[in-house]
């Protein structure tokens, strides 16, 4: 596996991982500003600040035509899969030209052009859908794979058992990822989860389990590369347990007063995936100025795109009646 200073390729990849994390962070910081300061984001948004290493590390292992199913906390995954951030901002603002035409918002963000088949507003619901996407791919003889990301809260829902069992029984090409930020909305997951939790449950159904430090993007990326290669070669589903930490509240408006004082601050200071990757790159010889440029470029990109998105009109009223169904379409008869 790669070590600092191995070769130019490794260094380029490490920089790309940091750049993606910086872009995700910048996107979400702008989104939070747009929600709180500008009142432009009208519905709830669930930031993944502090969890960017999972998105960046896993998505770099995938092809554009591989499939991704994500959660309500899915901005990072979507961006890292290759979605257009301008279309994503427009979606958050409910505007025309949003990736879902302004119909979905943050919780249903999707970009089918890059294989991103949807974030989901229902915890755990994407697990069976992702298994099914893999089932369809296998049925068609494709070498594409599906990645199904969910949080630690989802392991207490039925679809976790049904979906993992399904994938194992049919040996489907799917990578399940438990992005474990340790919080189920506002409740600490381990206080409501019996036994040893996510990995043990997956292992009980015969899935190979890999556990990683989900705030170490290099470690996530290496694990994802290996797992994706095995899955693509037809070895069946695997389970990645990435342990990370949600630095914000459940939503951008949640001040998370239920957390012990100092817990989030300690994570931000000592275990932030972006700070850690910057340190790693410094060891590889990047200068502070180069690191600052990466950061500033991401910030400038996202600030400009938000501004552009805010200048976009809302969708036409008639869109409320389109893309519902062909037979019995509300565009023809809604009553």
């Amino acid at each position, binding site marked *: 596996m790669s070590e600092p200073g191995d070769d130019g390729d490794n260094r380029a990849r490490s920089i790309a991982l940091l750049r993606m994390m910086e872009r995700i962070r910048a996107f979400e910081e702008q989104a939070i500003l747009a929600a709180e300061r500008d009142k432009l984001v009208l519905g709830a948004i669930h930031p993944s600040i502090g969890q960017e290493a999972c998105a960046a590390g896993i998505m770099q292992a995938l092809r554009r035509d591989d499939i991704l199913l994500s959660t309500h906390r899915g901005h990072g995954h979507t961006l890292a899969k290759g979605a257009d951030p301008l279309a994503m901002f427009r979606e958050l603002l409910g505007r025309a030209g949003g*990736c879902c035409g302004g119909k979905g918002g943050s919780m249903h963000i999707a970009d089918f052009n890059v294989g991103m088949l949807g974030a989901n507003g229902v915890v755990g619901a994407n697990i*069976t859908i992702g298994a*099914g*996407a893999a089932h369809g791919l296998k*049925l068609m003889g494709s070498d594409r794979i599906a990645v199904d990301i969910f949080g630690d809260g989802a392991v207490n829902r039925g679809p976790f058992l049904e979906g993992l069992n399904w994938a194992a029984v049919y040996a489907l090409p799917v990578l399940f990822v438990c992005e474990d930020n340790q919080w189920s909305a506002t409740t600490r997951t381990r206080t409501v989860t019996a036994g040893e939790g996510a990995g043990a449950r997956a292992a009980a159904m015969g899935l190979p389990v890999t556990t990683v430090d989900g705030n170490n993007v290099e470690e996530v990326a290496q694990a994802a590369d290996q797992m994706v290669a095995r899955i693509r070669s037809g070895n069946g589903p695997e389970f990645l347990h990435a342990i990370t930490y949600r630095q914000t509240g459940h939503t951008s408006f949640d001040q998370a007063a239920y957390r012990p004082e100092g817990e989030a601050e300690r994570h931000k200071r000592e275990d932030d995936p972006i700070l850690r990757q910057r340190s790693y790159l410094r060891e590889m010889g990047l200068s502070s100025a180069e690191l600052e440029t990466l950061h500033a470029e991401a910030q400038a990109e996202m600030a400009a795109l938000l501004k552009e998105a805010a200048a976009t009109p809302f969708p036409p009223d008639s869109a409320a009646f389109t*893309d519902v169904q*062909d037979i019995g379409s509300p565009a023809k008869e809604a009553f």
Partner: protein
Amino acid sequence: MAEKMTYVEASREALREAMRADETVWCLGEDLGRGSVFGQYLGLQEEFGPERVVDTPISEAAIMGAALGAAMVGTRPVVEMRFSDFALCATDELVNQIAKARFMFGGQSRAAMVIRKPTGMWRSSAAQHSQSLESWYTHIPGLVVVCPATPQDNYSLMKAAIAADDPVVYFEHKNIWGMEGEVDRSHTVEIGKAAIRRTGADVTIVSWSDTANLADEAGARLAEEGIGAEVIDLRSLWPWDKATVRASVAKTGRLIVAHESVRVGGFGGEIAATVAEAVPGARIRRLGAPRSLIAYAPNLEDQMRVTREMIAQAAREMVK
């Protein structure tokens, strides 16, 4: 060229033809290799193999959710729920996911699939294997709701449902699997078009699923008594054929809606209200099950039935 088929054979033949014509059509559900509970899939696994006629675990949520994922990548699943009652285990997958997958993602996706839900009372099956819940699904934008009552319609509508690019919730009535009838394989039925099973000038009787057969029999009896009943089998509840019903009631001035499901909140109320708005002065009656539960003991079960005699009697009272 018509041939004799039972209701269960008719939809099986439609499915077989669709699978022969399009290799992206596949079926998933419990015990399909053995034909499923009522023989709807007999012989299909032998012909198409276990990859296209998939025996699944008893995991309704996964069956429904997996079908959506598979539809999103371009296959056309036919989902078997075994009993419509069991489909309630997969309500999130159907209502929150499948029905919304196209709209919520701004039209990027479609969920072209058929969700088969054997429905209705079937002697002494009690409260969890007898319900008629079709009205629930009419309330969910995104879904198409189909309720065939005859072998021909079960053939033609199954073909239409598989060909549709929408999710179609397909209710087959368990009491009529063995019903025989002439089936013409070249006969197509458009979803949303009712069948006028019998014409008459005195009273319009609107129904669907097996109750449409009872309504037709009631109409025959009424004809002997000199009462002209126009019996309309809606065949689908969303969309439903308002134009045909409206035209009929405009002629007869009287409407009876009869269905097996509970009357309170049943789809009959929607039809009654629509006709009341559209045809001023129309007299309207609704027949449906009492808002109670379906029991095991036959005499208790019978308390929940809308019978052909109840339909005929309602008509007699209206035209008196």
